[in-house]
C-alpha cells in the first residue's frame, strides 16, 4: 500500500486532506459530517416549507379573502407538499441513517463513503433545482401528486417537478444501495440480525422500500417529463393515453413512500422508549416483524388513493380490505411501545416526551387513515381537509415528532453537549398544542365539506368552517413560535451546552460506547457483540435472581474497558477514506443537466455530460487507499 500512500499526498490527482474548515465540509466522505450536512439542509428546507404553509394558512384564515392570488396559492401548497416530503422528511431520515447506522452496527463508515457524499450533493442540487423554478417562470403548481393531464400542461411548471424529483430520487436510490450494503455487510462481529437495534432494522426496511419504490416513480417521472417537454403521449387522452396510468404509477411509489417517511421515526422511538423506561423493548421480534410486514403490505394498497378515480367496485373492495389490514401490524407496534413503558421507570425528558407524543399523535392519524379505507365514505372524505388532517397527523405528529425526538436524543452524541431541557420541554408543549390546534380542526372542517387545494375558503361553507380555519391559522402561529424556540435551543446548546459525557442517558446501543462527539474513525477497537442491547449488557450484570444490577464504575478493569471504547493507541493502523472533491464536482453537473433536459437544449446537455464525465473520471482515477470504497483487492499469492 505504500505506493498508494505516497500517491495520495502529491501529484495532480492528490486528494484533499483538510479535516476542519469549510473545505472539509465540501470534500468530506465522513458519514458523520455528511449526516450533519443533511441535517442543516433539511432545516433550511423545513423553514421554506413552513413559510409556504404560512401563506396557505393566512390565506385561509378567513373566508373569501385574497391575500395571495390563486396562481400563487397553487404554487405554495404544491411546493409545500414537495418540500416537506422530498426535501425535509426523507432527507432528515437520511441524516439519521448517515450518522447512526455505522455507529450502531459498530462500523467505521458506510460501505461507499464517496457515494455517500454523492447522495448528499445530489439531494442538495435537486433541491436547488426545484427552488430555482421560482425565479424561472414560476414554481410547479399541479399539486405534489401531479395528476396528469393537468401536470403535462406547460403552465403547470411541472417540468421542474419531473426533473427535480428525478434528481432527488437518484440521491435516495444511491443512498439506499449504500445503506443496504452497509447494514448487510459491515456489522461488527457478533451483530446478528436478531441483535440489531430496531432503528437499524427499520433503516434496512426503509431502504429496501426506497430501493424498489424509487424506480417506479422514476418511470412515472420520465413519462411525465417526456409528455410535457418532448411531446410524448403516455397520458394524453386525445391519442388514447390513459391519465389513470399516472395515478397507478405515482401511488405504486407513493404509498410505500409514506412508510418510507414513518418507519425511520418508528425506529427512533423504538430506541428512545426503552432507554428512558429502563426496560428492554417489549416484543422486539414482534416490532421488527411488524415493521417488515407494514413495508410488505405497503406495496399492495396503493389504489386506496384512487377510490374515487376510474376504478371499479372489485378493485375498490380489494384495496379497501388490504388497506384496513395494515392497521394490524401497526397496532402491534403501538401496543408494544405502550407496554415497553408499562412497568418501567419513566424518565420524562424532552426526547421521551416527543416519543410518547409520537405514539399518541400517530395513533390519531392512523385511525383516521382506517376511516379513509371505508370506500363509500372515502368518496366523501377524499380531497377534503379530513385527508389533510390525516396525513399531517401521521407526517407531522408521526414522522416529525419521531425525528425531533431523535434530535434531542442523539444531540449529546453528535455535539458532546446536552440540550437545554427547559427550552426543550417548552418546545415540546408548544409543538403539541400548536400542532393539535392547527390540524385537529381540519378533521371537522373536512367532514363539513371543506375541499383541499382551494385557494379561497368559500363563504358558502358557513361560519363553523370559518372558525375551524381560523383556529388552524392560530395553531400555525404557535408552531412558528415553537420552531423558533427549538432553533434557539439548538444553537444555544451547540454553543454553550453542558458537557454530555459518553453516555448521558444510560443508553443501550453501541454508539454510546464511543466518545461524544465520536472520533473520526468511530471506534478505536471494533466492538464484539454478544447481546442485543450490547452496551446495556456491558454496564449491567445479572444477580442470582436474574435481575440486572449496575456494575459500578471502577468495579474492575475488565469492566471499565468494556464500557468505554479504547483509545486506539495505534491510530495509524486505522485507514479512513480520504476526503474527495469529485462527488461535489460530478454532482454539480446535475444542475446544467437538469436545465438542459428542461429546456431541451442540446449544447447545454453536452456541457453537462462532459462536466459529469470529468467528475466521474476524476472519481475513478484519483488515488485510492486502504479504507476507501474503491480500494483494490489484495492480489492473492499464487
Amino acid at each position: 500500500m505504500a505506493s498508494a500512500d505516497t500517491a495520495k499526498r502529491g501529484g495532480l490527482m492528490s486528494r484533499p486532506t483538510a479535516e476542519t474548515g469549510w473545505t472539509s465540509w465540501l470534500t468530506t466522505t465522513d458519514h458523520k459530517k455528511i449526516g450533519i450536512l443533511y441535517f442543516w439542509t433539511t432545516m433550511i428546507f423545513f423553514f421554506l416549507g413552513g413559510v409556504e404553509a404560512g401563506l396557505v394558512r393566512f390565506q385561509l384564515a378567513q373566508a373569501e379573502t385574497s391575500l395571495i392570488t390563486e396562481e400563487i396559492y397553487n404554487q405554495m401548497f404544491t411546493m409545500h407538499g414537495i418540500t416537506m416530503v422530498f426535501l425535509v422528511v426523507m432527507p432528515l431520515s437520511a441524516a439519521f441513517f448517515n450518522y447512526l447506522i455505522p455507529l450502531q452496527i459498530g462500523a467505521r463508515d458506510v460501505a461507499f463513503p464517496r457515494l455517500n457524499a454523492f447522495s448528499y450533493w445530489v439531494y442538495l442540487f435537486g433541491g436547488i433545482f426545484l427552488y430555482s423554478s421560482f425565479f424561472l417562470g414560476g414554481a410547479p403548481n399541479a399539486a405534489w401528486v401531479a395528476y396528469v393531464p393537468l401536470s403535462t400542461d406547460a403552465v403547470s411548471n411541472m417540468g421542474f417537478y419531473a426533473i427535480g424529483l428525478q434528481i432527488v430520487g437518484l440521491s435516495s436510490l444511491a443512498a439506499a444501495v449504500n445503506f443496504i450494503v452497509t447494514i448487510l455487510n459491515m456489522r461488527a462481529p457478533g451483530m446478528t440480525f436478531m441483535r440489531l437495534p430496531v432503528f437499524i432494522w427499520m433503516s434496512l426496511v426503509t431502504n429496501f422500500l426506497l430501493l424498489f419504490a424509487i424506480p417506479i416513480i422514476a418511470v412515472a417521472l420520465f413519462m411525465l417529463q417526456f409528455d410535457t417537454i418532448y411531446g410524448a403521449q403516455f397520458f394524453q387522452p386525445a391519442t388514447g393515453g390513459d391519465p389513470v396510468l399516472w395515478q397507478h404509477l405515482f401511488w405504486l411509489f407513493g404509498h410505500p413512500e409514506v412508510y418510507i417517511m414513518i418507519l425511520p421515526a418508528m425506529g427512533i422511538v423504538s430506541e428512545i422508549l426503552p432507554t428512558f423506561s429502563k426496560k428492554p423493548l417489549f416484543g422486539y421480534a414482534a416490532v421488527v416483524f411488524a415493521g417488515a410486514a407494514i413495508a410488505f403490505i405497503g406495496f399492495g394498497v396503493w389504489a386506496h388513493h384512487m377510490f374515487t378515480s376510474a376504478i371499479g367496485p372489485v378493485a375498490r373492495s380489494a384495496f379497501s380490505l388490504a388497506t384496513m389490514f395494515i392497521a394490524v401490524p401497526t397496532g402491534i407496534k403501538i401496543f408494544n411501545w405502550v407496554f415497553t413503558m408499562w412497568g418501567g421507570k419513566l424518565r420524562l425528558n424532552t426526547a421521551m416526551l416527543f416519543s410518547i407524543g409520537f405514539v399518541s399523535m400517530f395513533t390519531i392519524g392512523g385511525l383516521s387513515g382506517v376511516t379513509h379505507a371505508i370506500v363509500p365514505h372515502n368518496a366523501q372524505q377524499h380531497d377534503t381537509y379530513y385527508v389533510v388532517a390525516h396525513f399531517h397527523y401521521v407526517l407531522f405528529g408521526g414522522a416529525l415528532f419521531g425525528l425531533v425526538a431523535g434530535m434531542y436524543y442523539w444531540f449529546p452524541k453528535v455535539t458532546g453537549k446536552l440540550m437545554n431541557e427547559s427550552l426543550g420541554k417548552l418546545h415540546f408543549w408548544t409543538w403539541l398544542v400548536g400542532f393539535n390546534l392547527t390540524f385537529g380542526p381540519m378533521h371537522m372542517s373536512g367532514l363539513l365539506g371543506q375541499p383541499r387545494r382551494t385557494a379561497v375558503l368559500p363563504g358558502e361553507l358557513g361560519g363553523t368552517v370559518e372558525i375551524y380555519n381560523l383556529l388552524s391559522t392560530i395553531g400555525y402561529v404557535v408552531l412558528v413560535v415553537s420552531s423558533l424556540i427549538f432553533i434557539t435551543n439548538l444553537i444555544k446548546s451547540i454553543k454553550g451546552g453542558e458537557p454530555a459525557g459518553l453516555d448521558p442517558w444510560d443508553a443501550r446501543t453501541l454508539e454510546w460506547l464511543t466518545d461524544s462527539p465520536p472520533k473520526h474513525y468511530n471506534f478505536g477497537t471494533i466492538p464484539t457483540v454478544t447481546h442485543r442491547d450490547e452496551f446495556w449488557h456491558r454496564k449491567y450484570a445479572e444477580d442470582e435472581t436474574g435481575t440486572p444490577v449496575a456494575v459500578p464504575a471502577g468495579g474492575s478493569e475488565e469492566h471499565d474497558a468494556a464500557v468505554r471504547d479504547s483509545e486506539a493507541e495505534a491510530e495509524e493502523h486505522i485507514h479512513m477514506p480520504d476526503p474527495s472533491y469529485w462527488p461535489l464536482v460530478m454532482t454539480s453537473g446535475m444542475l446544467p443537466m437538469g436545465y438542459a433536459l428542461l429546456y431541451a437544449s442540446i449544447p447545454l446537455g453536452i456541457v453537462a455530460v462532459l462536466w459529469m464525465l470529468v467528475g466521474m473520471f476524476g472519481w475513478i482515477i484519483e488515488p485510492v487507499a486502504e479504507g476507501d470504497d474503491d480500494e483494490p483487492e489484495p492480489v492473492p499469492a499464487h
Partner: protein
Amino acid sequence: MSANPETSAPQADAEHDEHGHHPTPRDYVRIALILAVLTLMEYSTYVFDFGGLGIPLLVVLIAVKFVYVASWFMHLKFDTKIFSRFMYGGLALAFTLYVLTLIIILFASATGME
C-alpha cells in the same frame, strides 16, 4: 468470485466455496449454444404456425433463456443465495405489481356496473 477464502469472514455461506465447481470456458460455450438454439426456436414461432401453442411456448423459451443467462453467465448457480434473492425478488415484485396494475386498468376500471 466473491471474496478470497482467506479473508472471508466466518459467517460466510458455506456453499459459496466456488472453486470446487467453477465453470470452464467450455461450459460457457455450451450454454451459449443452447441459448442460440433457444433463440432459433423463438424465431421459429414467427415462421411456423404453432396455433394456440405459440405464445405459451414463447413464454417458456423466454423464461428458460432468462434462467440460463442468470444462472451461468451471472453465476447465480454458484454464488450465495442472497444474490438470487435480489434478482428473483426484484423480478417477482415488479411482475406482481405491474401485472396487477394492468389487470386493474384493463379489467377492473369500469364504474358503470349493471
